[in-house]
């Protein structure tokens, strides 16, 4: 039995995914001392603990499954990768959003040529939580833009709201891509406690795809105004990454360790918000336009 300790703000997703796999036991990590009982550590969502705990786990021989959204910078990602190499442990930086059923359906349609050249990716991602969670969700959506528009953004502009009113919990990111493609993402963690909302539209030269909670709502009548509940999609986002991780550990499958280029973009996003400048990609970095 492979014992995997789970940390992060979205542990329930990973715990549910673990139930779908044989020979795997996923359990929340309660404290640093309990880490010793696990073979591997999985981070899902933002991690409240210092990243040092993750580095420590690698150095002590734990395999690592790391949600890209848990990281804050390219430098942080590379220090973890270096530690994993030194400790000869298996590691994967994963982007679970890529494995959501809706995104997979859209990617298949793109790859089949049904939609033509992608022109616009529009994402609304609304939820509740602290500002760290906003950053982690934004990284996931920027990664999706890179995945679906198949390249790094060549330009970006980012804004937030009135700095006196929760600016660190709302961000709007406007991305430009080679060939005229574009993405516009708005993300907030200022919703009241309750359901999240998600909407993704991809417009291509030949067609379009719409993945939308609004469309997938069911209605509940219990007196007063009707309530809308999103139809559940289970923990599919984490089943594939978890399976890849298990295969990497037991050596049954060579696995690519993950694309963390979204982290370079998030640095530029923060610069754009701070300076009010649009940013352009020059070489491997972003500079004011």
């Amino acid at each position: 039995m492979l014992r995997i300790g789970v940390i992060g703000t979205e542990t329930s997703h990973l715990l549910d995914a673990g139930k779908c796999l044989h020979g795997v036991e996923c359990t929340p990590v309660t404290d640093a001392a309990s880490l010793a009982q696990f073979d591997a550590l999985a981070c899902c969502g933002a991690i409240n603990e210092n990243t040092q705990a993750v580095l420590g786990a690698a150095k002590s021989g734990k395999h690592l499954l790391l949600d890209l959204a848990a990281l804050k910078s390219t430098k942080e990602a590379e220090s973890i990768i270096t530690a994993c190499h030194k400790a000869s442990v298996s590691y994967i930086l994963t982007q679970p959003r890529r494995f959501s059923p809706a995104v997979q359906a859209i990617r298949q349609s793109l790859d089949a040529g049904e939609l033509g050249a992608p022109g616009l990716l529009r994402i609304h991602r609304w939820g509740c939580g602290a500002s760290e969670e906003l950053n982690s969700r934004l990284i996931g959506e920027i990664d999706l833009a890179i995945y679906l528009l198949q390249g790094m953004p060549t330009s970006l502009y980012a804004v937030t709201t009135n700095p006196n009113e929760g600016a660190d919990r709302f961000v709007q990111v406007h991305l430009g891509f080679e060939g005229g493609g574009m993405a516009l993402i708005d993300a907030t963690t200022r919703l009241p406690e309750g359901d999240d909302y998600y909407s993704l539209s991809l417009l291509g030269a030949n067609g379009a795809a719409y993945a939308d909670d609004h469309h997938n709502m069911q209605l509940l009548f219990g007196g007063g105004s009707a309530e809308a509940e999103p139809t559940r999609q289970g923990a599919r986002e984490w089943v594939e990454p978890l399976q890849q991780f298990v295969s990497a550990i037991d050596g049954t499958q060579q696995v690519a360790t993950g694309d963390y280029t979204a982290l370079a973009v998030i640095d530029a996003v923060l610069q754009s918000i701070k300076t009010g400048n649009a940013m352009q990609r020059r070489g491997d970095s972003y500079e004011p336009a």
Partner: protein
Amino acid sequence: MNQPSQNQPLRCAVLSVVKHAYVPLGVAAHPRFELVVVADDADAPDWAHDRNQLFADEQGIPYVRDVEQAIKQYDVQVAVVSSEAERHCALTVRAANLGLHVVQDKPMSNNIEQCDRVVEACEANGVKFLMWNRNFLPAVLHAREIVDSGRIGEPYAIHVDFYFAKDAGPPKGSRASGDPPIDWLERQLEAHADGSDGGVGREPMGELQVEGIYPLGYIRMLCGVEVEKVFARTTSHFHQAHFDNEVDDLSTVTLQMQGGIVGSLCIGRIGAASHPDIGEIKVHLLGSKGGLVVSEARPEVEVYYRSQPRGEFRRRRIANDNDDLLMQNFADAIDNDGETILDARAGRAICATVAAAIRSGRTGRPEPVNAEPSDAYQPDA
């Protein structure tokens, strides 16, 4: 100009009706307004005269090839302007200077200085101006009701995704080597057959210019603030005509508004294959107490039948009183010396936002919105 008393019909001159006639038909449907004449300048092109005459015949009213003469001869109080966009403002100014109230088709203009002249002429002559819009669609009214009730608190972000699933001629990339670029006016004249000729005229116009007023009108109505700065990306992604004429058929705009409110507009003419109906049009609002997602098309009923023509919409909008409510709003403004839901200054502000977005799309940088009309008449305090 003789002003009828309240509840008496206001006599209307249709000043050019060369595109899809939804505006004069919307005016005519309200009992307070009566179309009495169609008029245009004598030197308008033959195709314009043909369309004007056809509309006049359908309405059973005369067509006069002299605007000023028609206004005088038929004792009109209102002008309904539905010409090519590049003539909108000139016709409106002429009508306002003759004391007519004006209902004008969108866009206000593709030239901000012309919008300034409209503001000046309407205010100097004390006439009312209504920029045609969709602010009274049932879903938009419902959204306003929810915002006004305070259920989502103070708005801090508003987004409109406005995708028209219509074709605009052959797809981009279809022009064979050696073939000439598509002529914009010719393409728009062809588009008259299916009513998608909102950009008719000699000057090419992208979707931001042709349709941007609708979503920007929603944003104005729901948040009540001016746009101060924009960042935009624009491209010709779908249609050969837009590519050949270097205008956008797909644009994304980040809006930075008064009070720190942030917004976005994503707008495009995305092709008929890209949606089962007219398109995906949604308003997303975030406030201090929650969020709101509104599908602009609703309420709808869905109708399917054997041998249904491919181009026929399966979902049909119902309970849509937009046209009637717009004209009632216009009548009330005239009767009570009030403001219309989208007056000349508001139309000008929207035009300025669009102009700034087009500029930003070219420079790759955020651009300020040129907010104030220049040398506009300033009414006494």
